[in-house]
């Protein structure tokens, strides 16, 4: 390959260098799809159980506080915070701001750090403060 290193690489996926903005981009879609399916199903189950009566509600909370429910709940809470933060980043980018390479990379990483922090704080509050 006679390639001038000063020229940009052709946009083939296999030669792209993986960056945080790419990870955040695909995570926005994955977390969105997860929230839209698993999250929406759990949300509807919670509301319908509450409307059905105490027994149906017990059945829901039994699942939600079991280990399967907790794993799903932790996953959904992280997905929610990640989707929320990368969504906010998208709203900023929609007005044409934040496309400079270093700034774009920085805020992409900030959504990852932010969602991890918010998830930890959320569960610290739920488990540690509310017991």
């Amino acid at each position: 390959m006679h390639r001038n290193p000063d020229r940009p690489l052709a946009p083939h996926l296999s030669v792209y260098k993986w960056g945080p903005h790419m990870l955040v981009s695909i995570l926005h879609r994955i977390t969105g799809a997860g929230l839209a399916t698993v999250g929406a199903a759990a949300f509807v189950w919670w509301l319908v159980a509450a409307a059905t009566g105490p027994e149906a509600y017990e059945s829901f909370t039994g699942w939600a506080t079991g280990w399967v429910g907790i794993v799903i709940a932790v996953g959904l809470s992280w997905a929610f915070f990640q989707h929320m933060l990368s969504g906010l980043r998208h709203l900023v980018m929609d007005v044409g701001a934040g496309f400079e390479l270093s700034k774009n990379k920085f805020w992409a990483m900030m959504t990852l750090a932010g969602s991890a922090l918010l998830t930890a704080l959320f569960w610290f509050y739920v488990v540690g403060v509310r017991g």
Partner: protein
Amino acid sequence: MSGARMQTPIARVRGLGSARSGAHHWWLERLTSVATLILFLWLAVSLLRLPALDHGSVTEWLGQPLAAVPMLLLIAATFWHLKLGLQVVIEDYVHEEGTKLFTVMVLNFFVLAGAALAIFAVLKIAFGGEAPAA
């Protein structure tokens, strides 16, 4: 341009999808994203402020107009937003036209069914008073 010499420009794009509704879809996705952001912050704060999340506390809270109405708005905004989002995912990955049409149709049915269930549940709690002891 070759191979389409006998066609007018409009004939070459007709049937390939509307050139008018894309921006509308895009705008509604943003609009509902801001709505869901505000409403989920409201939901999170409301739930964390409840003394407990048992059946009695939740139904008593959800029976109040100032809880039931934001919850109905949240359901509408969220299901609308997730419908728009999942539709784009389907359109990106399902390439066969028939399968795409079918999948988007199934998505619409599921979204309407889920939203209807959730809305009915909230209305039952809000208008039905005490749930009868089963």
